[in-house]
C-alpha cells in the first residue's frame, strides 16, 4: 500500500465547467505513468462518456495535461486548485462495470456541485458520517422515511458505532422539506432539565443557560410547552429525533437514588414528550445502542404498557450491518478517497480482512493504515497484517458488542455463554461458509427462552442467515471475535 503519487505530471483531465456559473469548475485528473495505463485510460474514457451522455450532463470535456500546475493553459477557466488527482493505475485491473461503480457517483457529485467527491478514512472518525461519508443505506433510509410519512414512530436499535446517528442525520436531510425536524442528543443533554432547555433554546433562540434556569424549575412544563409551540408555529408536522434515550435515564439515576422518584421523573419526562406528540400528530424516532425498554424494565420495573402515549407502542427496528452490493468497489472508493493506492496482494488481503459492513471500525483501521503509510511512504502486505493485529488488540470499536453480551443478554450469563459459543463456532469456519442454521438451533435448544435469545443474537451481532447457513456479515468482526477468543498468550 502506498500514497498516491501526486507528483506525476502527465495526465488526462475530465474538466467540468458549470454552464450557469462559469466560475464553478472541477477537474478530475487521471495521472499516467506509461503504456501500462493505456487500457485503463481507454476504459475510463468509455465509462465517463457513457454516463455523461446517458445522464445528459453538460459542461464536461477531456484534456491532455502535461503539467497540472499550468492547467489554465489548457483552458483559461480551469485552475490547478480545482484538480482532484488519481493515478490511472488505480483502475488498471478493474472491469468497466467496476469503474462505473467507482466513477459514476463521482460524476453525479461534480454535477450536483458537491465539494467532497469520495469518502475518506480520516473524515469519518469520531463524528457521525454525513454527505459522501455516509455509505450506502439508501433502501433503509427510504423505507424509514416512508414509514414516517405514513405517521409511524419507531426505535432504531443497534450496537454503538454501527451508524444509527448517521442514519438519523440522513433521515433528517431527506425529510427536511416535508417536516419540521428537531434533533435531541441525550448523550449531550442527559437530564430532563437539560433536554428541556435544549428544546426551548432551539425554539426561542434564548441562551441555553437562561433556558436551563427555567427548565430546572419545571422541566416537564418547559419541554411540553416548547414542543407545543414548535408544532403550532409550523404548518409542517414535527419529527422528533432522540439519540441515546438511555443516557437520560442514567442521568436521572445518578441524580436520584430512590427508585420511586426515578420512576416518576422518567415517566414525567416521557409524558412531556408524548402529550405534544399525540396532540399534534408528530412522529418520534429514537435511536439507541441499549434497548431502553429492557433498561426501564430492569431498572424501574416499568413495562412498555406502563409508558405514556406513543412510548407504550413504539416498535424496535434493528439496524443490521451494511449489506453492500459491491463491497470491493465500496472499499476501493474509500481507498481512493483516502489517497491510498493498493499494490499487488493488498486488495486480496483487504477483501479477506476488512469490509464496510460495519463502517466505523473499517474506517478507523484504514485511518491507522493511512497514518502509517504517510510515515513510511509505502507498506507491504505483511506490514498491513501487523497493523491489523495491533488494531484488533487495541480497538474499542467493537466494545459495545462485549457490553451487550456481558450485560444485556436477555436471560443472563448462561445464555451469554451459549451466544458466545455460537459466535465462536461461526468464527471458526470460513467467512463465506459459516455454520448450518440447524446447528445454531441445536446449540440454543438447551437455553431458556431459546427463541428470544436466538432473535437477540441475530438483532445484536453482525450475522445473517442465507441458504440455510448462518455466517458473519463482517470479516472485520470475525477477525476481532477470533482475537477476543484466542487462548494463547504471546
Amino acid at each position, binding site marked *: 500500500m502506498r500514497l498516491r503519487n501526486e507528483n506525476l505530471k*502527465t495526465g488526462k483531465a475530465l474538466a467540468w465547467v458549470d454552464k450557469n456559473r462559469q466560475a464553478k469548475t472541477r477537474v478530475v485528473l487521471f495521472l499516467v505513468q506509461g*503504456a*501500462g*495505463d493505456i487500457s485503463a*485510460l481507454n476504459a475510463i*474514457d468509455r465509462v465517463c462518456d457513457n454516463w455523461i451522455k446517458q445522464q445528459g450532463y453538460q459542461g464536461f470535456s477531456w484534456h*491532455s495535461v502535461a503539467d497540472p500546475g499550468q492547467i489554465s493553459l489548457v483552458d483559461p477557466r480551469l485552475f490547478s486548485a480545482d484538480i482532484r488527482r488519481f493515478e490511472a493505475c488505480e483502475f488498471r485491473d478493474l472491469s468497466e462495470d467496476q469503474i462505473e461503480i467507482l466513477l459514476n457517483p463521482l460524476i453525479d457529485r461534480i454535477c450536483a456541485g458537491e465539494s467532497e467527491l469520495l469518502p475518506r478514512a480520516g473524515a469519518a472518525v469520531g463524528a457521525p458520517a454525513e454527505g459522501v461519508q455516509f455509505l450506502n443505506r439508501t433502501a433503509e433510509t427510504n423505507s424509514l422515511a416512508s414509514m414516517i410519512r405514513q405517521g409511524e414512530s419507531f426505535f432504531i436499535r443497534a450496537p454503538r458505532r454501527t451508524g444509527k446517528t448517521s442514519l438519523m442525520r440522513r433521515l433528517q436531510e431527506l425529510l427536511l422539506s416535508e417536516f419540521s425536524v428537531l434533533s435531541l442528543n441525550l448523550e449531550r443533554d442527559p437530564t430532563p432539565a437539560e433536554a428541556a432547555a435544549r428544546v426551548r433554546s432551539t425554539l426561542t433562540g434564548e441562551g441555553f443557560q437562561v433556558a436551563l434556569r427555567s427548565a430546572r424549575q419545571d422541566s416537564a412544563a418547559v419541554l411540553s410547552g416548547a414542543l407545543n409551540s414548535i408544532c403550532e408555529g409550523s404548518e409542517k408536522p414535527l419529527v422528533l429525533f432522540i439519540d441515546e434515550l438511555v443516557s437520560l435515564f442514567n442521568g436521572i439515576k445518578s441524580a436520584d437514588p430512590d427508585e420511586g422518584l426515578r420512576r416518576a421523573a422518567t415517566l414525567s419526562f416521557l409524558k412531556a414528550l408524548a402529550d405534544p406528540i399525540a396532540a399534534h400528530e408528530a412522529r418520534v424516532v429514537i435511536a439507541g445502542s441499549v434497548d431502553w425498554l429492557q433498561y426501564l424494565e430492569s431498572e424501574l420495573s416499568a413495562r412498555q404498557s406502563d409508558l405514556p402515549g406513543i412510548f407504550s407502542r413504539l416498535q424496535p427496528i434493528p439496524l443490521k450491518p451494511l449489506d453492500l452490493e459491491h463491497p470491493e468497489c465500496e472499499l476501493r472508493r474509500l481507498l481512493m478517497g483516502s489517497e491510498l493506492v493498493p499494490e499487488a496482494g493488498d486488495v486480496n488481503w483487504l477483501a479477506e480482512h476488512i469490509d464496510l459492513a460495519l463502517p466505523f471500525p473499517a474506517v478507523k483501521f484504514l485511518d491507522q493504515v493511512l497514518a502509517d503509510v504517510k510515515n513510511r511512504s509505502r507498506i507491504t502486505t505483511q506490514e498491513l497484517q501487523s497493523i491489523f493485529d495491533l488494531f484488533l488488540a487495541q480497538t474499542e470499536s467493537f466494545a459495545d458488542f462485549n457490553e451487550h453480551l456481558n450485560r444485556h443478554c436477555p436471560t443472563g450469563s448462561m445464555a451469554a455463554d451459549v451466544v458466545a459459543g455460537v459466535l465462536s463456532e461461526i468464527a471458526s469456519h470460513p467467512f463465506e461458509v459459516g455454520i448450518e442454521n440447524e446447528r445454531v438451533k441445536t446449540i440454543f435448544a438447551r437455553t431458556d427462552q431459546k427463541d428470544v435469545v436466538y432473535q437477540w443474537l441475530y438483532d445484536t451481532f453482525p450475522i445473517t442467515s442465507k441458504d440455510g447457513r448462518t455466517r458473519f456479515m463482517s470479516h472485520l468482526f470475525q477477525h476481532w471475535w477470533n482475537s477476543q477468543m484466542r487462548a494463547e498468550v504471546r
Partner: protein
Amino acid sequence: MSTDGKIEALIKEHFPWGQDGYPARPEHPTPEALKETAREWIRERVRSTGIENVALALQARIETVLTELERQLPEIERPRLFYRWDPSHNLKSPESILDKIARDWDPTAATAPKIGFDDFHTAMDDLARFRIVVNFLSDAEKVCSKLEDPYKCSPADLVSLSPGQQALHREFALHNHSLEDSILRAPEKRVSGERCRKGIFSPHSNRGLKVEIQIQTMLQEAWDKKDHFLIYEPRRRGEPIDGADSIEIYAMSELLYVADLTFDRLLDAIRRRRGN
C-alpha cells in the same frame, strides 16, 4: 482544384457511406452535410482507437527521461528553462485528416486515395503528436540522444541506461530506431524552412498506433508558428503565395538557426568560464 474542392470530391466519391461501421448518406446530401457527417465519423473513429491515451502514456514515459536529464544539468542551470511541452494539437483534427487524405489523392486519376477511410488511423504517422520545446540547440541534441540511445545500443548495454530510458524501451518502439533530423539537413535537400527532430513511437502492445514527437528549440518553434499562419494555412486554402514571401520566410528560418548557434556558443563559453 482547391484543397476544399478536393475534400468535397473525396467525401462524395470515396467515403464508404452506409457500409458496415459507416454512417448512412445524409437525407439532404449537401456538400456541407456530407463533410460534417464524415468529420463526425472521423472524430469518433480516432477516439475509439485510444490513440490519444497512447500519446499520453508516451509523454509520461518521456517526461521521466527529461526529468532525469534535467537533473544532470550543472546545478546553477537547474532553475533555467530546459524544456516545456507544447500542449496544443495533441490529436490531428478531422479537418487535417481529410486534408491529408485529399492531398495525396489525384481526383483526375479515377483511383482510390492512397490513404483510405478504413486505415487512415494506422497509415498516418502523426494522428497523435506532441512537441518538446527546448531552450538551446544543445538541449535538443541531449534530449534526442537520450531518447535514441535505448534503440541504438546493444541489448547488453540496455542495463547501463537510466530507469526512465529502460522503461521507455520496454513499453514503446521507436520506428527506424532513430529520430529524423531536419535541423542539420543540407541546403540542397531542404524543401522548407522547418527545422526539428521527429520520431515515431508505437506501444509494443499495438504497433499500428503511431505517435509523432517533435523536438525543437524555442526559436525553431517560433518560426514554425509564424510560417503556419503566414504561408502554410493560406497555401492549404488554395490562396496564391507570393514568391518573395516564401523566400523571406525561408531566410528567417536560416537566420534563427544562426541565432540558435550563437546562443549555444555563448552558453558553452559561459560554462567553460564557470568551470562546468
